């Protein structure tokens, strides 16, 4: 038995069937493009473009992964093709990693669309690209696992959409990207700290403009913990709810 063959093929099938399909490419890529343009065209001063880059990158990932995974998994559950995967002789962990890897990769690709635009509009020297990549990967992982968490909590495709927005829109305003954490009312700040995107966005800020407010190792630790928790909790729920 070669479980990696199953892993690789699940990943490739999802890529082909969902992420690389024209409508999804447009949703996944045009969305970041629109965001990018919306912000960048409004800010003629080059320095501001740079300030906006982390936020737009983080949102591109969030919007490319969370609902995408939640919707595709819910869809496969409804059409019962997901049962095939559960019957395959691979562990549940490997299966769910295969199902999430596609979305994670898609999220990473999405993240760099705004970078291309920014590179045209401004000078991007002095950015810690390694740190950018590491945070992009971690944001993509946590956002995808959030999608998995949503998928195990709903049964209908429209619920997956709605529930994704329930998480995404508050995150948008509370993660410190557009409103600095320090400017948020103090009673809301704990909510910000409970959101994985807050930490990812902060690393991106540090990497791009050295203006993050949380220590980088702490950010990474928080993201790893979020990933671990969301994945473990989702697996627990898959085992409890989807294996009847």
């Amino acid at each position: 038995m070669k479980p990696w063959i199953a892993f690789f093929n699940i990943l490739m099938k999802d890529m082909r069937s969902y992420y690389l399909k024209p409508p999804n490419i447009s949703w996944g890529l045009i969305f970041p493009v629109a965001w990018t343009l919306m912000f960048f065209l409004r800010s003629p001063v080059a320095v501001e473009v740079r300030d906006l880059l982390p936020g737009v990158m983080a949102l591109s990932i969030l919007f490319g992964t969370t609902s995408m995974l939640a919707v595709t998994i819910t869809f496969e559950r409804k059409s019962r093709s997901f049962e095939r995967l559960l019957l395959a002789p691979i562990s549940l962990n490997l299966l769910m990693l295969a199902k999430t890897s596609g979305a994670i990769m898609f999220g990473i690709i999405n993240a760099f669309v705004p970078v291309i635009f920014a590179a045209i509009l401004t000078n991007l020297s002095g950015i810690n690209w390694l740190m950018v990549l590491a945070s992009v990967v971690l944001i993509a992982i946590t956002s995808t696992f959030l999608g998995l968490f949503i998928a195990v909590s709903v049964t209908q495709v429209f619920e997956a959409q709605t529930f994704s927005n329930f998480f995404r829109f508050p995150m948008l305003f509370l993660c410190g990207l557009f409103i600095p954490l320090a400017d948020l009312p103090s009673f809301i700040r704990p909510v910000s700290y409970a959101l994985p995107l807050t930490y990812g966005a902060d690393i991106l800020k540090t990497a791009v403009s050295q203006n993050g407010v949380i220590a980088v190792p702490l950010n990474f630790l928080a993201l790893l913990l979020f990933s671990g928790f969301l994945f473990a909790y989702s697996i627990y729920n898959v085992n409890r709810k989807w294996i009847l």
Partner: protein
Amino acid sequence: MIALLKIIEAENLKKQYNGFTAVDGVNFHIKRGEIFGFLGPNGAGKTTTINMLTGLAHITAGSVKLMGEDYTRNAIKAQALMGIVPDESNLYEELDGRENLCFCGALYGMDKKQREKRADELLEQFGLQEAASKPFKAYSKGMKRKLTIAAGLIHEPEILFLDEPTTGIDVAFARQIRSLITNLHKKGTTIFLTTHYIEEAERLCERIAFIVQGRIVREGTVVELMQETQGENIINFILGGDFSAVQTEFKNSFPDYNIISGKNNSVSIQSPASFSLLPLVKFFEERSLPVFEAKIVHPSLEEVFVNVTGIELQKLQNEQSTRTGPGQKGGI
């Protein structure tokens, strides 16, 4: 010798959904290389049993073994040897026939060359070559069924689970599928077949278990099951007049015979022993009821099934109504 080996054993297998008992402590085994039939009405627990045997449902109580090895808690090793054809086609709508088969092969760890070769073999065997590059969503119901069965066979499983493979498809397709099952059986594949077509089970299966309301009410070879109706004979008459006019008289003249149905000019009579036809014909002729037709009906598995499940259903219901005291749950 090998043919007698138990490949799968289920002991006191039980499944509850939020307090509702779908499968209630069933015991059975499947021998290597046989076709084992699971026959039962809608909602009897057939699919639930397959789900437990294949790792798609958690087992509430009891155990399952594969060649003597318990896999109740971890089915991965067993799953590698199993091919599963669900009651509904559940392949990927957007993939074509070949892609679907290849993907399923990959799930079982087959490498690219191996699965492509096997997929082409199966497409040919199932007469689906022309549909090989059509998306699954463009398949007809019968074609979908065939491809779903092919997908279950891609990794040449030792044990094939077929959940109502011929339900909802036309006679010709159903016949093809049955001959396919026979061919697989000849090649040595063990087959677990659920169906509510009694005739299908009778024709295909070596051993059959009747399941009703989550319990196995009978189990045995077809010959063993048929013995239940041995000595029971039924004869159907078509008469030239209304039987009801002579019904009372008939009962008095032939107290050993049992009238199953007597409507207008047709009557079915059951006898615990063999019939002597002449006195019966004479009886009718003397009363101006000419005998147009007399046909002896041999009991089929259907009679056994109806007898067994009918009786057992009543028995179960009686038991439930007498089981009134608190805490008296459990078996019979």
